[in-house]
């Protein structure tokens, strides 16, 4: 008679089957492959790797496929997998000055040493739907021309050029803190240092970080940013194995980096100087890197003695709400049964209404 | 079970997953029901003078995130290498930095050498694992506090004369303070900072 447990299990299993069927879509069409997703939906894969905190195109593509293209769900899948992986080593800091640049632009100067490199970007495409992409057989294999000369090897960071004149704050590692904070091993702790904030923003939801960045531009923040430089390309990742004592190259990864240059009026003990905002993401994602750099600078208000009065400057507000795996989970948990507490509230509201009516009647009688 | 005099490293848990779990459960019961003697069900060959309960607790709880202070006899003997190898824990020279300390009742440093945590983070304090000659044959004391239904009589042997006076001082720091786990062979008794002791 009482078989609800089995019923619940059956319902869950059936729901798994149904989602698998829905994911597959029309079975008369070929199933999409992981390679196709990694190649042709590369920017989705980049976002999933960045917010999933795991640089692996194949796994990120699998997550995109499994999540039916729902990127927040794909990010969650990748994070849950990531926690089961052992930690082998801490990498050396990547050197983006040695990046194999595919794209590099500065809005602060007309020309820069190493040159402006437009590279692959949607920036100057006209946003007209390209029906050729929808045509039977697709577009074949478009080819981009190869440049006559190779790019310069040395591409200094634009922000560092200002360093020669002492016009921008120096950006030096903190000698008291040789190891960076790691949010994947320690809980958030406020007030947070910049390393913790940057890691949080790098993992943070692109939409949330973008909206915060936008708010600083519209008036909910007092920064005056210039896109000092945005660069994207491959960098080498190195580790120093304990037993070797020197760095070895373990592979390359594509990253997008943004240096924002912001005005700073100076204070009693600091001369007027440009200040930095920094953004870095896995893969190619300039929107996220730029937004991150704007929010990074906004969150440095305390450091520069600025009054923190806007949402993007509010460290606890930003850091505690940026993670979409946490946010999506907590919003969606409202789907779980809450009927015990709802029952308690039902009784209360009935009681409060009865008391209210009593008072009304008494008042009317008087 | 007799450790050899050579430098041969003794093995850790026979089953790292289940032995760690059972050692933790014995410790959880010890801290949850203070004063009651619990036993670790594992057999473990530990280097002298590290006891089985203390060694099991170390293997179950220590790692590279837990700075450990060892009393000189342990620090200079094979136990230090054993713990470094099996736990990967940093062995520190300052008592104040330690999250755990392995000590012996006969040579117990004063309790106020150890970290008591911070007012907002009282959890960042030391846990002292104190080896004693007996958990049941010492002078009678009466314990009260969370985990104890009414009160319980406890007879820990071999502690310094002023130990319970020091413990009373530690109680005064609540919610900061150190926590203690007494060990003897395969057995252990928990004494969390909340416990009031009448000596």
């Amino acid at each position, binding site marked *: *008679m009482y*078989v*609800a*447990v089995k*019923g*619940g299990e059956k*319902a*869950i299993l059936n729901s798994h089957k149904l989602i698998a069927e829905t994911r597959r879509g029309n079975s008369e069409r070929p199933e999409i492959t992981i390679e196709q997703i990694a190649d042709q939906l590369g920017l989705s894969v980049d976002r999933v790797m960045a917010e999933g905190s795991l640089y692996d195109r194949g796994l990120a593509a699998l997550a995109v496929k499994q999540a039916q293209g729902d990127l927040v769900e794909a990010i*969650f899948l990748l994070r*849950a997998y*990531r*926690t*089961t992986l*052992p930690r082998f080593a801490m990498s050396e800091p990547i050197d983006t000055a040695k990046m194999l640049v595919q794209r590099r632009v500065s809005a602060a100067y007309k020309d820069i040493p190493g040159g402006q490199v437009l590279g692959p970007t949607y920036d100057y495409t006209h946003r007209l739907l390209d029906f050729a992409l929808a045509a039977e057989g697709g577009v074949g294999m478009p080819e981009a021309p190869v440049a006559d000369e190779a790019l310069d090897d040395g591409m200094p960071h634009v922000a560092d050029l200002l360093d020669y004149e002492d016009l921008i704050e120096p950006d030096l590692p903190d000698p008291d803190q040789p190891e960076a904070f790691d949010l994947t091993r*320690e*809980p958030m*702790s*406020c007030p947070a240092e910049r390393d913790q904030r940057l890691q949080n923003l790098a993992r943070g939801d692109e939409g949330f970080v973008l909206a915060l960045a936008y708010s600083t531009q519209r008036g909910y923040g007092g920064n005056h940013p210039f896109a000092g430089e945005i660069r994207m390309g491959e960098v080498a990742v190195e580790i120093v194995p304990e037993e070797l004592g020197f760095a070895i190259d373990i592979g390359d990864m594509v990253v997008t980096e943004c240096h924002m240059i912001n005005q700073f009026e100076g204070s009693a003990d600091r001369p007027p100087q440009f200040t930095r905002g920094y953004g870095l993401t896995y893969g190619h994602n300039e929107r996220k890197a730029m937004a991150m750099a704007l929010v990074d600078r906004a969150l440095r208000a305390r450091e520069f003695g600025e009054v923190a009065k806007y949402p993007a400057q509010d460290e606890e507000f930003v850091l*505690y709400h940026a993670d979409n795996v946490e946010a*999506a*989970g*907590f919003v*969606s*948990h409202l789907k779980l049964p*809450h009927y*015990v*507490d709802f*029952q*308690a*509230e039902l*009784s209360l509201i009935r009681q409060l209404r009865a*008391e209210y009516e009593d008072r009304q009647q008494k008042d009317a009688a008087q | 079970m007799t450790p050899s005099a050579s430098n041969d490293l003794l093995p850790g848990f026979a089953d790292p*997953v*289940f032995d*760690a*779990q059972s050692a*933790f*459960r014995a410790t*959880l019961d010890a*801290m*949850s*029901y203070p004063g009651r003697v619990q036993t670790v069900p594992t057999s473990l060959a530990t280097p002298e003078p590290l006891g089985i309960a203390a060694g099991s607790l170390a293997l179950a*709880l220590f*790692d590279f*995130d*837990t700075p450990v202070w060892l009393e000189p006899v342990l620090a200079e003997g094979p136990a230090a290498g054993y713990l470094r190898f099996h736990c990967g824990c940093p062995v520190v020279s300052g008592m104040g930095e330690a999250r755990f300390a392995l000590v012996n009742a006969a040579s117990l440093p004063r309790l106020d050498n150890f970290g008591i945590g911070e*007012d*907002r*983070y*009282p*959890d960042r304090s030391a846990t002292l694992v104190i080896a004693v000659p007996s958990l049941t044959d010492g002078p009678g004391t009466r314990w009260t506090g*969370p*985990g*104890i*239904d009414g009160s319980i009589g406890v007879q820990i042997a071999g502690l310094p004369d002023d130990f319970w006076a020091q413990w009373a001082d530690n109680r005064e720091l*609540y919610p900061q303070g150190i*926590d203690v786990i007494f060990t003897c062979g395969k057995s252990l008794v928990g004494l*969390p*900072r*909340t416990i009031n002791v009448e000596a």
Partner: protein
Amino acid sequence: MSAVSAVQWDEAYNFAYLDEQTKRMIRRTILKAIAIPGYQVPFGGREMPLAYGWGTGGVQVTASVIGPDDTLKVIDQGADDTTNAVSIRRFFERVAGVETTETTEDADIIQTRHRIPEFPLREGQVLVYQVPQPEPLRKLEPRETETRKMHGYAEYGLMSVRLYEDIARYGHIATTYSYPVMVNGRYLMSPSPIPKFDNPKMENNPAIQLFGAGREKRIYAIPPYTQVKSLDFDDHPFKVQTWKECCALCGAKSSYLDEVILDDRGGRMFVCSDTNFCEDRRAKGHTGPLGADPAALAFAHKEPAQ
């Protein structure tokens, strides 16, 4: 140990899913939580294969405590048959291969969301609560840096003011669940969203009570036999919910009752939220006004739609 070799689990994962380093970190956290009753210990909570808000904290605590000989019970809203309870139980069957039960008495570990079982717990049992928001002051003060200070200095005036405002407005305290408690006379603690009906069960309970908040990355605890006082005022003492009705199925008058809607004309009945308690009573011959009514039984323990 023979029992050890008897358990079988999905060997793609470590026993109980978590890696040993994570378990050690959580175990150390639990021991400090026991030593400082009611104090929220921060821990490096991990992403789990279920969503934040769906029991990740409770699952991490259970996974760190559970051994091959343990028997596990999982309830949500007091019931063993709610979907999330079923899902979490299946998770542990798969990754730990442990025995599971619906019988409160037979369980070594009980993971719960929103209820404390009606049957009294015993020594050695571990009750693991899933906690969405561990901070009892959060709705009054959103900043963690501020609330941590308040706990540090035991400054809980804000909460008393909040409760007193209720009295001024309604004549009584209008909090029905997540009703704040003082633990061991020192820390203000959220009991998790259990109805205040369950608050008195927390005090002097022989079992170990552990609370896991995965998203907020906090673990806290109430050791056995510990003072747990629901906040109140001398002239407005703490009171739990009562019902005029008894359980329609088993006739219980002392259990927490859920309202079940029977039709769209206001028809309803009340049944025990603790399914194990209700069944046990019916098996022992107790019956309520609708205890023999097949329609009522079907309503009370309806299978989820497939």
